[in-house]
C-alpha cells in the first residue's frame, strides 16, 4: 500500500530548506535522489506530509579539494563522485565504491548524503567514508554543527541527526602523509545489497604504520570500525608486513563483527567472508600507501 499524498516543495537555498524543516518538523522529510525513500513510500513505510526536495540546491552539490581536505556536498550524485578525477587520484576508494553501487541509472539520482542518512547497516559509501575518518556538517536554523561519521550511526536507520537538521557536507581529511582507502564488497552483482563490505586505510610515516582504519558493513546493526584489529598494525614496518600478520588482523576483525543471519547470508558465512575481504582490503591499502 502506497503512503498518502504529500506536498512537494523545492527550496533554492539551505536556509530556506532548514526553515521549512523547522516549521514542519516530523511531518516533513528531506528528499534528495529519492532512491531509498521512494520505495519506502511506495510500500507505505513512510508517509510524509511535506517532501522538501533538496536535490537542486546549488550549495549542496560540489566536490572541492582545499587545504588537504575534501568537501563533498551532500546532494552530489554518486555518478559525479565516480567521475571525479581528483577524487579518483587522491581517494581512490570512493571511486571504487561508487561504481559498485546500485545501477548506472540509479547513480545518476542517488546522492552521497542520502546513502549516509538512510543509515543502512550495509551502506557501501558509509563504510568507505568511515575508513576515511569523514566528518559531517549539519545545518539547522540554529546554525551549523560538525560531527564525526563514527558518531553518526546509532543503529539500523537510526542516526544522530536531529529532526530539524540537514546534512550539508561530507568532509574527508587527507591527513599528513597518506590516507588511501581500499574498498571491497561481496554481493552477486552491484545492484545487490552487500553481504559484507569492508574498507581499509593505512597511514604510515617513514614506513612505520601510525594509524590503521578498518570499517565493515552488513555485519552489525550499523557500519562499524574494527578497533581492536586496527591496533595490531600500529608501530609495524609497512614494507615488512607478512601474510601471517595480515591474517591475524583479519581474524581479529572478523571476531569484532556481530553479523546476523538473514535471507542474504548466514552468520558463519559472513564471519568467514569478512576475514577474506579484510585481508584483501589491507593488501590493497598497503599497495597504495606511500610507505
Amino acid at each position, binding site marked *: 500500500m502506497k503512503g498518502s*499524498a504529500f506536498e512537494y516543495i523545492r527550496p533554492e537555498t539551505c536556509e530556506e530548506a532548514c526553515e521549512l524543516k523547522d516549521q514542519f518538523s516530523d511531518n516533513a522529510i528531506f528528499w534528495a535522489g*529519492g532512491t531509498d525513500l521512494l520505495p519506502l513510500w511506495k510500500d507505505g513505510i513512510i508517509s510524509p506530509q511535506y517532501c522538501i*526536495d533538496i536535490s537542486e540546491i546549488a550549495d549542496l552539490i560540489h566536490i572541492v579539494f582545499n587545504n588537504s581536505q575534501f568537501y563533498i556536498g551532500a546532494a552530489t550524485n554518486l555518478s559525479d563522485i565516480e567521475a571525479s578525477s581528483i577524487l579518483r587520484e587522491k581517494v581512490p576508494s570512493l571511486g571504487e565504491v561508487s561504481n559498485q553501487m546500485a545501477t*548506472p*541509472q540509479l547513480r545518476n539520482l542517488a546522492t552521497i548524503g542520502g546513502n549516509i542518512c538512510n543509515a543502512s547497516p550495509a551502506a557501501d559509501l558509509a563504510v568507505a567514508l568511515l575508513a576515511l575518518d569523514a566528518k559531517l556538517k549539519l545545518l539547522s536554523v540554529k546554525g551549523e554543527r560538525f560531527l564525526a561519521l563514527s558518531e553518526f550511526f546509532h543503529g539500523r536507520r537510526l542516526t544522530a541527526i536531529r529532526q530539524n537538521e540537514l546534512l550539508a557536507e561530507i568532509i574527508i581529511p587527507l591527513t599528513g602523509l597518506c590516507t588511501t582507502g581500499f574498498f571491497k564488497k561481496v554481493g552477486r552483482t552491484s545492484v545487490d545489497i552487500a553481504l559484507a563490505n569492508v574498507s581499509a586505510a593505512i597511514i604510515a610515516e617513514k614506513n612505520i604504520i601510525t594509524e590503521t582504519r578498518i570499517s565493515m558493513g552488513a555485519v552489525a546493526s550499523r557500519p562499524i570500525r574494527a578497533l581492536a584489529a586496527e591496533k595490531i598494525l600500529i608501530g609495524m614496518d609497512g614494507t615488512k608486513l607478512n601474510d601471517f600478520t595480515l591474517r591475524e588482523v583479519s581474524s581479529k576483525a572478523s571476531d569484532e563483527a556481530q553479523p546476523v543471519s538473514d535471507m542474504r547470508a548466514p552468520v558463519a558465512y559472513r564471519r568467514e567472508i569478512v576475514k577474506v575481504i579484510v585481508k584483501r582490503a589491507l593488501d590493497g591499502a598497503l599497495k597504495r600507501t606511500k610507505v
Partner: protein
Amino acid sequence: MTQFHVNGRFYDIEVSPDETLADVLRDKLGFRGVHVSCERGECGACTILMDGKPIPSCMVLALKAEGKEITTIEGLGSPGNLHPIQKAFLEEHAFQCGFCTPGIILSAKALIDRKEPLTALQVSHALDGHICRCGSYPQIVKAIMRAADSQKKELRHE
C-alpha cells in the same frame, strides 16, 4: 500546472506530487515506450534521459522533471527514419521480445554521446542496470559497438 519538456516539445499538465515520472510519461503524455516493470529502479525498462543522463523514471517524482529536458525512445527515431542505434539493433538482432529495448537504447545513446572510445566491457558495465529476460546480451553489446563505430566513421567524414 507543470511544464514538461519531452522530446523537444513542451507540455503543460496537472500532476500530483506523488506521481512518478514514469506514470506521467506513460499515462498522461502517452509515451508508451517507457516500459514499467519492477518499479524499484532495478530492471532498467523505464530508463529515460533527463538532461542527457539515463535515469529510471519509476524512481523520480514527476515534479522533479520540471525544467529538465526529457528524452524517451519516441524522441530518437521514427519507423521510417530509425536512429543509428535502432538500426544497429535490427542489424545485430539485438532483441527478441523487445521489452527492455527502449531503456537499453537510451542508456546506449548516453554512452555513445560521450564520444569516447568504447570497449565491449565498458558497454557491459554501462548496461549493469538493465535486465534482458530473453538473454540477448551478446547481441546487444555487439549492436552498441556497431552503432558507436558508425558514429566514429561519421565524425571522421565531417
